[in-house]
């Protein structure tokens, strides 16, 4: 499956598919938007031959991108962290742990962030397959 299909699914959920619970759709869209961006980033790094352990993949992706010398990649890495936070809230702060309700604005924000992150990482990878992460970083 192409990871960007997750972004397409996020858009579908954001538009409230017929019969689907609204807040669950909004929350689901935030999760799909995050995973679309995260998996695109991970796959680009794997393709650039950065080694990954089975555990701690989210931290490893963030750690590598933080060391990029390209300011856009670095900034979008912070966007990815923001998106991860949104996804954690949407998935875990539910039921007895609900702190705030989720509305369409949240999923719209997640989709905008995800789309920008994906475009930015893919553009950087076309210029430098290592996303401008220095050679000494392995």
């Amino acid at each position, binding site marked *: 499956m192409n990871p960007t299909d997750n972004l397409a699914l996020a858009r579908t959920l954001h538009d409230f598919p017929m019969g689907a619970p609204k807040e669950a759709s909004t929350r689901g869209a935030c999760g799909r938007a995050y995973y679309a961006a995260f998996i695109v980033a991970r796959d680009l790094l794997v393709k650039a031959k950065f080694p990954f352990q089975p555990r701690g993949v*989210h*931290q490893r992706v*963030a*750690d590598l991108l*933080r*060391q990029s010398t390209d*300011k*856009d990649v*670095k*900034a979008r890495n*912070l*966007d990815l*962290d*923001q998106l991860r*936070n949104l996804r*954690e809230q949407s998935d875990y702060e539910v039921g007895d742990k609900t702190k*705030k*309700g*989720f*509305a369409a*604005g*949240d999923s*719209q*924000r997640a989709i*905008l*962030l995800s789309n*920008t992150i994906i475009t930015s990482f893919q553009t950087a990878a076309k210029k430098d397959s290592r996303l401008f992460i220095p050679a000494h970083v392995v």
Partner: protein
Amino acid sequence: MKTMIKSRIGDMWLRQEDLAANIPGRPDSAAEIAVCIKYIRDTWARASNAVGIDEKARNAILHARVVGSFANPVLVQLREQLQQRDELLTQQDTTISRLLAFVPAKALAVSDERLQAIVAEVGEIAASVFKGHNIKWSLSDEDDPESLACHRFTVVVEMTDKDDLEELVVAEMKLREQLVSSMSDKELRALRILVEYETLARA
């Protein structure tokens, strides 16, 4: 701010409070944890501060063993003492490794002085990119075990139904673009900066 102690694993730092936390499933007693914290603070700190000490100590132990093998009773006794110390160290190492498996690693905390400077800077940039919006902020410890950061800075932007969300998202991305120019990699690792919109989400 929570107390940070350095571990010997890479450049990682741990929070003393996390190490001593009552984690379900961890069988260690409070006294055992206290001994381990003391061990990490004293022994590891000494080892990392004085380069070569470990090597010298190892050589001395090896030398004592060689001499001891030819042995008068005092040397034999010394060798036994060294062996006991080795065993104790191995035992403490095992306990510490077991404890560490439960404790999330964190990046080194940013100094209070620098943190205040960053907070002022972020506040200024936020006021500029979210011009016309009321902004609040808060600084706290980062408790997400999946994040290396040890501080969390949250910028809360007040918005109304009339605001264009797309413009606000562009503004928050601009905020991060400016932050990566003014903060070092280590600071970006230690400080998690998040943006929230106050009236965006409604139950």
